[in-house]
């Protein structure tokens, strides 16, 4: 296995009843890359994410993260191992503030027990103060510090998307999975998002796997692309190769034209 390989899926397959959502998907992702996963609606992209993050256990196949077999591991343990994600349909904690959303990730690393918290012992207070500082710093880096105390549900759509990414970053991942980060954005916002994604890759030393429908985003930012159609991998390659691949054009025609 190559030294820089961070994630590899070995022919993972997911079946729901009689329906095969993903069939024999094999991905190899190297440290520092930005990889795109594209395909028409219902192609099985989100299902692939769900298998990698442990929400579903693959019917068949293995998933390795940094050489370790993580197939069927619990989602929270996979997050602790260093894979984090955002969701296609935004899933923020709506009853909490922006800061509190981000601070959940630190709770997991807290070295105190509930009794310490109930009794407000100094080691708990100290840990929480540190977490507070760390999270405020993170919010500054992603330019959400001005809304830190706003309710997450009250943010405008674009900022909710950004918060989803910030929240995922707070778990200190080495691999970040983005599920349609540009959904619902206009061209200007998409451009900003591309800059933002490049910026966090440098800043947080990330490898990124993203699902995206906006072709200009995918083609502009991804170094390699995998195309799914009806769960089957129909092409893998650089953006130029993908753009000229007849099978992709055939499967994807409508979507490419409407976005071009």
């Amino acid at each position: 296995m190559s030294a820089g390989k961070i994630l590899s899926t070995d022919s993972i397959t997911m079946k729901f009843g009689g329906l095969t959502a993903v069939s024999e998907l094999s991905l190899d992702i190297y440290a520092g890359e930005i990889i795109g996963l594209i395909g028409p609606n219902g192609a099985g992209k989100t299902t692939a994410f769900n298998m990698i993050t442990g929400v579903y256990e693959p019917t068949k196949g293995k998933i390795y993260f940094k050489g370790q077999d993580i197939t069927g591991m619990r989602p929270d343990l996979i997050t602790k191992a260093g894979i984090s994600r955002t969701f296609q349909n935004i899933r923020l904690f709506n009853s909490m503030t922006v800061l509190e959303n981000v601070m959940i990730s630190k709770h997991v690393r807290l070295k105190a027990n509930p009794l310490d918290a109930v009794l407000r012992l100094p080691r708990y207070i100290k840990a929480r103060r540190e977490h507070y500082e760390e999270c405020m710093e993170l919010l500054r880096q992603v330019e959400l510090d001005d809304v830190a105390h706003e309710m997450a549900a009250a943010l405008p759509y674009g900022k909710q998307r950004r918060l989803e990414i910030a929240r995922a970053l707070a778990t200190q991942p080495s691999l970040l999975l983005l599920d349609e980060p540009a959904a619902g954005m206009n061209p200007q916002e998409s451009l900003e998002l591309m800059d933002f994604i490049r910026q966090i890759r440098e800043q947080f030393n990330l490898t990124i796997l993203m699902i995206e429908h906006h072709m200009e985003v995918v083609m502009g930012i991804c170094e390699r692309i995998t195309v799914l159609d009806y769960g089957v991998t129909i092409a893998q390659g650089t953006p130029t190769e993908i753009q000229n691949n007849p099978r992709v054009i055939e499967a994807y025609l409508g979507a490419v034209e409407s976005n071009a």
Partner: protein
Amino acid sequence: MTLETFLQNIANGISLGSLYALIAIGYTMVYGIIRLINFAHADLLMVASYAAFYGILIFALPWWLSFLLAILLTTILGMSIEKIAYRPLRDAPRISALISAIGVSFLLQNLGIVLVGASPKPFPRPENLVWNIHLGGISFLSLAVIIPLITLVLLAAVNLVVNKTNIGIAMRAVSRDFETASLMAVDVNKVVVTTFAVGSGLAAVGGIMWSLQYPQIDPLMGVFPGLKCFIAAVMGGIGSVPGAMVGGFLLGMGEVMLVGFMPDLSGYRDAFAFVVLILILLFKPGGILGEHVVEKV
């Protein structure tokens, strides 16, 4: 255990199982459509029984007319409950609808206590409907034959409606995917109301049969049969009409046999259903005839 008592138990098990099945169908249909445990379903049994009771005793109606009116009344009540207490909460969190269902259930029970008193009343058994049958060494009530028969006929009718009529096809569409069905111009409200009507009607038949079989009625009489029938529906696979039938029979037979074979455990009879429920939910959450549904993320 002698052969006679064994056969006696079988007969008891079949009637109890049929009753469970009949009532479970209403639960399973409603759950299949709007994903709600209709706690009030249990109390519809009670309402139907009292309606039939007063029809015969106060208004001196012939039993069949009284039964029919009771079924009609219960059906209307079931439809009204949906309209008043469940429909406004259709887009609310599931917990809210469930709380509303619990509220309706308590309201019916306590209205029952207020209106007719808490003390049990003897339910009349019409002579040309209930008589003793002697067969070899065992004797049983005609109900042991009539109840399963009625259950089978009604089950066949429900199956026919669900599979062959337009409204039945709409029901299945809504049960598969509520939102898509409503986008595809299915009149969801009509489907839901029809489901409640059918379910409540069946609950009424079940309640009256129950009262004939166990002729003591009181305002809380629906609670335990109700819970158990929901369990039967889960056992068979919630949303599946044949599943409710299978679950009902298994549960009824299981309870009777538990007490028959292990009289020491008779005090735990009511716990049996819950233990079964918990085992089913843990090991085969889709039920015996249901399919396991994976939550969408």
